[in-house]
């Protein structure tokens, strides 16, 4: 390849480029290379590359040897000394021009990219910093996982203690029942025990789950109903829970469970005296609350003897009214068919609370 042609080739390259002979003598340098070296062409052409390099001569020879062995670009590094004594670290892509037996060969083309050694160092520092950050993150993650496991263990222990304490409370009430002399006292303690049993059921249902935000209403209502049914042992009274796809938020579910427990207890106690037969039907409707949030409507209807009690009568109904008020709702009791049946309706409102 004619030297003139090579000179034109180097001239079109944007980056600094050198044409070097096999022994390391610089034959040509383009304008960017001269600017990089801070020298006129006369101080570059004909000089040994080792003289222009800041790298040790052996390192320069190794680079040239590698480049001479390949017609495709070999990547290496080369530090050049400028006329004013400064050093420029460059990334070097070099290769042989022509065939090994070419009389003019081997000529080596070295294309330089200034500052890559610095960038490489920056990149290396960045990778080191990233690795350190990853190690810190991993340690933090391990600590978080350990804390989560610890929290889970404490939560399970807490639930276990709550359930045990409820069982103890039931035992205390049972002892009170055994020692009560007056029928009124016995009845009051017995009712209290049934209420605590309802709360115990809620505890079991809620805290057997991984997620505690909401619970399926159908399962929940059926469990509460079954608890009352077992307590009264009245197979001649059919207890129906109508299907519902609603889910209950946790804080509302406990109140709803107590309300249902009271209304069913009331129905079993008073609607079917003297072993009478009949049915009690439980329903739950969920609709958006116009004021925001959700509105649950619980109905308990029996086809028993009807009620002549004022809605305020009895501790149980007082509890129902109080819980309805607590949830911004209302309680009504009415005779669905005069003298024949009773329909209780309780509305409870739920608005999501702001996070703590």
């Amino acid at each position, binding site marked *: 390849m004619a030297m003139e042609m090579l000179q034109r080739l180097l001239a079109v390259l944007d980056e600094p480029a050198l044409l070097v002979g096999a022994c390391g003598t610089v034959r040509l340098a383009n304008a960017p290379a001269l600017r990089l070296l801070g020298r006129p062409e006369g101080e570059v052409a004909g000089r040994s590359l080792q003289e222009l390099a800041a790298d040790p001569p052996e390192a320069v020879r190794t680079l040239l040897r590698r480049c001479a062995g390949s017609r495709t670009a070999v990547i290496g590094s080369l530090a050049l000394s400028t006329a004013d004594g400064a050093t420029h670290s460059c990334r070097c892509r070099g290769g042989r021009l022509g065939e090994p037996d070419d009389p003019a060969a081997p000529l080596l083309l070295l294309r330089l990219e200034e500052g890559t050694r610095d960038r490489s160092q920056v990149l290396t520092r960045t990778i080191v910093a990233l690795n350190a950050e990853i190690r810190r993150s991993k340690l933090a993650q391990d600590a978080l996982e350990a804390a989560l496991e610890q929290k889970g263990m404490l939560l*399970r222990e807490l*639930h*276990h203690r709550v*359930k*045990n304490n*409820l*069982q*103890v409370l*039931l*035992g*205390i009430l*049972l*002892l009170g029942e*055994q020692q009560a002399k007056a029928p009124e006292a016995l009845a009051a303690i017995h009712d209290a025990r049934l209420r605590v*049993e309802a709360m*115990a*059921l809620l*505890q*079991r249902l809620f805290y*057997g789950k991984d997620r505690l935000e909401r619970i399926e209403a159908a399962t929940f209502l059926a469990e509460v109903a079954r*608890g009352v049914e*077992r*307590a009264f*042992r009245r197979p001649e009274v059919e207890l129906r829970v109508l299907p519902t796809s609603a889910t209950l938020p946790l804080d509302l579910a406990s109140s709803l469970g107590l309300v249902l427990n009271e209304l069913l207890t009331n129905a079993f106690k008073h609607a079917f005296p003297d072993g009478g037969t009949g049915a009690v039907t439980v329903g739950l409707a969920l609709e958006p609350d116009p004021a925001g949030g959700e509105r649950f409507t619980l109905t308990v209807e029996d086809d028993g003897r009807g009620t002549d009690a004022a809605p305020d009568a009895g501790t149980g109904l007082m509890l129902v009214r109080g819980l309805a008020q607590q949830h911004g709702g209302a309680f009504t009791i009415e005779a669905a068919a005069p003298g024949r049946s009773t329909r209780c309706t309780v509305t409870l409102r739920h608005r999501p609370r702001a996070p703590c």
Partner: protein
Amino acid sequence: MAATRSASGPGSRALPSAGFLAGLLPRASPDEAAGIAPAPARILVVDDDWFVRLQIERFLGCAGFEVVGIATDAAAAVSLADRLRPDLVLMDIRLAGPVDGVTAATEIADRFGIRCLFVSAHTDQGTITRTLAARPAGWVPKPFTEAELLQGVRAALAGP
């Protein structure tokens, strides 16, 4: 601590009829053929909480079962099971002392072939899996009601 006692007490009522317990009591008696009510199932209760024991004794007694012994720790449970050979053991998981109810139940099942009905607030999957070594007769989660306990006991006695 261990004690042996009868479950009969102030709250006890007459034994259920043979028909009511048909198929539930494991031990057939020649008396049955003669129309005499079968002997009540004999149950050992292992729980370290006095109030819980009070409820279990009361509920079992009222339903016609005989509580033949009470233990509060694993060593006493194994010892009483050996001596009394009950039909069923009601076993809590967390007991007084260093050994838990799963270990005691496993030993009782292995040595005497008596199965345990676990009555415990520990209802997580890990604990339930651990109890499988004891070939449990069932589970009654705490807090339990009278109906739930009796249902669990009857199912355990009727089981294979």
